[in-house]
């Protein structure tokens, strides 16, 4: 288990502020955020490579804030792996064990064990120069695991790999973590990668946690505009509350359109609707739907993205919808038919301007969050 309490650290203009995080024993946690948001800096603080200005770091309940990196029992795989170029694969794996002055017998056994676990036994005598991206990644992982760390920190471990290798390695990382039950924090700025390895994650932006929680929550219930945009909820709208709607909903006017959002809200409200939750159907197929709004739309542009089709819809508001191929095929023959977008009330998620209100975030920072238009 690794836990931080109100960790603060600044370097140059950048400041990591009151970062509080708890990753349970054996959990695979993914740290998300755009480049420059402070993910690597946070990891370096956890490793002890950066001296924090305030706050504490606990590993398995032990306060390691003042302990130097080698005493923390944290395995660290930095970006681009940072393999020692003057060592062979075997020497890289053994580096930590040699530094800890382990016996020759133990060094040999551990090297064989981690090399076999990661399938790089045949590479041991090779130099670093000739390795492929995947082989380098495994070697770096083997080097970190050889010292039997309590926590494993992976800084964008698959970002340098090609698409297919990345998918395979992510699957292997997940299996490996499950087998070893090692507490893992994995940095990524790629959603597909995050969902393929972890169940829980946190979004960091400008040195502050925007939201921490299950990835499903980050995706379906973003707490603020930044999280919504980062999780690709493109339909972000701000409207004026018009009063209560049916079944514990609120009517909200966005321009000339009217939406239903769950719960009771007053004044100005910002909300988001995930594109896959917007249904696009022919106007004559609309049934009376009590908890949904129906908007007349036209398809401005459609893009086939392989797994789904993205539709840019123009109407009283502009909307983005993701349709499965069968649903899109049903729409296509009716070129002249009027289309409507159906937006159910439960598809809307109300956004907060305050990152401290982010669900699951233990942050006690009350400064208003940044609203970015990334």
């Amino acid at each position, binding site marked *: 288990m690794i836990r931080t309490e109100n960790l603060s650290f600044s370097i140059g203009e950048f400041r990591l502020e009151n970062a509080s995080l708890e990753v349970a024993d054996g959990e695979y946690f993914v740290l998300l955020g755009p480049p420059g948001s402070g993910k690597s800096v946070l990891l370096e603080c956890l490793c002890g490579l950066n001296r924090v200005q305030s706050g504490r770091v606990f590993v398995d309940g032990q306060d390691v804030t003042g302990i130097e*990196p080698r005493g923390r029992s944290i395995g660290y795989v930095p970006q681009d792996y940072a393999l*020692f170029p003057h060592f062979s694969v075997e020497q890289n794996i053994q580096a*930590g064990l040699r530094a800890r002055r382990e016996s020759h017998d133990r060094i040999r056994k551990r090297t064989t064990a981690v090399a076999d676990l990661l399938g790089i036994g045949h590479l041991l005598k090779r130099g670093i120069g000739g390795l492929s991206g995947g082989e380098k990644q495994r070697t770096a992982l083997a080097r970190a695991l050889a010292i039997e760390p309590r926590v494993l920190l992976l800084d964008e471990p698959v970002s340098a790999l090609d698409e297919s290798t990345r998918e395979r390695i992510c699957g292997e990382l997940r299996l490996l973590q499950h087998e070893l039950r090692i507490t893992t924090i994995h940095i990524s700025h790629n959603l597909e990668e995050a969902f393929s390895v972890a169940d829980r994650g946190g979004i960091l932006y400008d040195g502050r946690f925007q939201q921490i929680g299950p990835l499903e929550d980050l995706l379906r219930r973003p707490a603020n505009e930044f999280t919504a945009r980062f999780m690709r909820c493109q339909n972000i709208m701000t409207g004026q509350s018009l009063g209560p709607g049916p079944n514990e909903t609120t009517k909200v006017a966005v321009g000339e359109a009217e939406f239903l959002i769950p719960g009771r809200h007053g004044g100005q409200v910002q909300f988001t609707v995930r594109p896959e939750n917007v249904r696009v159907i022919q106007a004559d197929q609309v049934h009376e739907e009590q908890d949904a709004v129906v908007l007349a739309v036209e398809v401005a542009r459609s893009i086939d993205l392989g797994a789904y089709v993205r539709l840019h819809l123009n109407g009283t508001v502009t909307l983005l919808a993701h349709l499965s191929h069968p649903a899109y095929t049903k729409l296509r023959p009716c070129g002249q038919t009027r289309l409507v977008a159906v937006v159910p009330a439960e598809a809307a998620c109300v956004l907060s301007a305050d990152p401290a209100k982010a669900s699951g975030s233990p942050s006690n920072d009350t400064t208003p969050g940044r609203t970015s238009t990334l």
Partner: protein
Amino acid sequence: MSPEKSMKSLVSKSRHGDRRLMAWSAYCWLALFMGSTVLGVLVNLAEWKVAARCFTAAMWISLAFYFITALLSIDTGTRGWSGRTFSAAVFFFLAVFLAFALFLVLSDAFYIDKAAVVSVARSPFIAHALRLSVATSVTTTAIALLFAIPMGYALSRYPFPGRMLADTVVDIPIVFPPLVAGLTLLIFFSQTGTGRWIEEDLGMKFVFEAKGIVLCQFVVSASFAIRSIKTAFDEVDRRLENVALTLGYTQWGSFLHVSLPLARPGIVAGAILTWARAFGIFGPLMIFVGSFRGKTEVLSTTIYLEQSVGHLEVALTVALLLISVAVVALLTIRLVGGKALLKL
């Protein structure tokens, strides 16, 4: 494979074969040049004038052919005439410089006579000067590395206040005339309280002493090592040290096992520069330690002393000895030092 492709492949292979042939011919011409040079110098010393002229002609012809074949062995890929003319243009300057440098050295080699060589070979003072030159320059290089490695690391890694100023101070000995270094050291030890305290109270004599040679060489050459080693540490990825720390190394261990081996090429380059500068320094030595035969005389000061009393052939023979030692040492450091030195 289509006939067209097959033809292209054959042409490509043939061109590759031509280049290899040219490279081999270049090596042969180079060997011929070196052989004719050595023989030319020897027969010139034996005063066989006709043979010396023949070897001299063979020497310059083989050098010209070496440059031509070396140029033709360069692979310009598919760059066509622009690649050829470009490589020829840049190679031209390299050839002119090398030919000029060789011409200068060989002028000396063909000027000396047998009597001068015998005189140098039999002189116990020149043998002492050679030993002192080698010993002091090697000692200076070792002391310079002792300072330059930690200093280069500190300047590369620690953003302390005034680092830019410290960096500039390191460069001062590179820019000021070496003669000034000798003068400054003399002033320091003879005119300042601290200098006199070191000389008189501590009893560490430098002025007109062999120890002063090392001090003088250190002052004028250490900056080259510091500059080169700082650049080498700049190029070592800091994350490698960070990973070493998380793996269990202390800061010392991380430095010794990761940073130092990776900075090795820069350290070797710094050692070469320092040694070369220390070995050839002359002006400050004349001022600070003088040139006492059998005591503080080194090869560079011998040259000055011999030519000042009119023994030009002897001075040039000593100069050739100095150049030969330097070339052998530099080649050895390059070939062996790069791999073996500092292998930790």
